[in-house]
């Protein structure tokens, strides 16, 4: 038990060190910006769940490797775990995510198609998407870990830029391939803007241009067996990102639960580090000519 905690802590710490690009502050919503081709972004994030009476705190860290395959396609791998107070610390699974941007130029509304395969357990707590009805939070890790879920998640991402504001809307449909339980639906909406739009000539960490602030609103919309807002979880989440250096940024978002099916609050923290020209560096490592 103790060694698992240490392993998880070291895992998160290593990820933080290895990590780095002015990033949107969103944790759940996606905008239309893909990773630049050949770049690798390493990100470590965590979600801390504030419990209701009778529930337990949880800490759910995840590591995300995002790679720009082409100018139209970004792929990501997630590894996730969670630790519940008074219970245990467990690895909850992995996900592979792909985002495709069919149209090259900037438009008034920029569509992106999203497809994710999840091999996770019901103990997953990272809350990367809120779909379907409110989750059951009273089960022990041993119980929920035993229930494996192979899930397919799709999103239609619509994103616009207007007067330096980003406005993004995601419509989410998720299908558990393991259980015959129909489709689950969800949404994520967000707006964000840099605190300053002109870059100063000096290198500074705390200039306003290094901060982007926004707000997210996300939640479930039921299932095919019961579409709607009944017994669903919804959150309103102010969010901020801070570009610490040329390649590194930090994000924070305290999400406030809006319904009884939500946690009272989710605290999210993320740190990402971008390795530019990763594919070229990797090729040179294996002897490819520059």
């Amino acid at each position, binding site marked *: 038990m103790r060694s698992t905690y240490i392993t998880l802590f070291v895992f998160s710490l290593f990820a933080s060190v290895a990590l780095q690009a*002015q990033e*949107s502050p969103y944790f759940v919503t996606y905008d239309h*910006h893909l990773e*630049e*081709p050949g770049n690798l972004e390493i990100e470590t994030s965590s979600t801390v769940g504030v419990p209701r009476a009778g529930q337990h705190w949880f800490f759910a860290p995840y590591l995300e490797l995002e790679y*720009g395959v*082409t*100018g*139209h396609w970004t792929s990501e791998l997630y590894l996730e775990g969670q630790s519940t107070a008074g219970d245990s610390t467990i690895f909850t699974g992995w996900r592979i995510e792909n985002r495709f941007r069919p149209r*090259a*130029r*900037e438009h008034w509304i920029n569509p992106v198609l999203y497809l994710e395969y999840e091999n996770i357990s019901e103990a997953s707590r990272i809350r990367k998407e809120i779909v379907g009805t409110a989750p059951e939070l009273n089960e022990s890790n041993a119980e929920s870990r035993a229930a494996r879920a192979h899930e397919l998640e799709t999103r239609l991402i619509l994103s616009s*830029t207007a007067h*330096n504001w980003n406005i993004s809307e995601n419509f989410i449909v998720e299908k558990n391939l393991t259980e015959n339980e129909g489709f689950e639906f969800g949404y994520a909406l967000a707006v964000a803007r*840099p605190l300053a*739009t*002109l*870059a*100063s*000539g*000096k*290198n500074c960490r705390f200039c306003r*241009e290094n901060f982007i602030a926004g707000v997210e609103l996300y939640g479930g919309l039921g299932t095919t067996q019961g579409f709607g807002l009944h017994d669903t979880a919804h959150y309103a989440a102010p969010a901020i990102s801070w570009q610490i250096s*040329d390649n590194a940024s930090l994000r924070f978002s305290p999400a406030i639960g809006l319904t009884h099916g939500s946690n009272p609050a989710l605290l999210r923290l993320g740190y990402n580090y971008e390795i*530019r*020209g990763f594919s*070229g560096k990797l090729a040179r490592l294996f002897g490819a000519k*520059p």
Partner: protein
Amino acid sequence: MKLWILLTTFVLLSGVLAQNTAYQPDPDWRAPQAATAKPNPLASKPEAAAGGKKLFLRNCTECHGQDGSGLMKKHAADLQLPVVQSQSDGTLFWKITNGNPDRGMPSFSKLPEPQRWQLVLFIRKLKPEN
């Protein structure tokens, strides 16, 4: 002494060879008429180019090099060439905004609009050393 001359020649030669002097613009990558005619709103603020330099070093040098001469291996444009410098501010702004993903140039629409104009200001300052 000979070694120094040899090394210096090698370094200078590598620099020349790394530049993309053979850059040919993509004929299909054209800004619409309305975009080409847009003036740079920061044209009367030359001091804003300093911020443009910072943005350039952060976002562009990976492919265009620190002096903007373009890296051959990245097939990136030599921004010092007249074929680039002769383009209007509006055209450069449009190209930075939209990118040309099929030719490896990403879109920088995630930068606020004034910062993209700052980049245009700085690109205007890129001149061959000799």
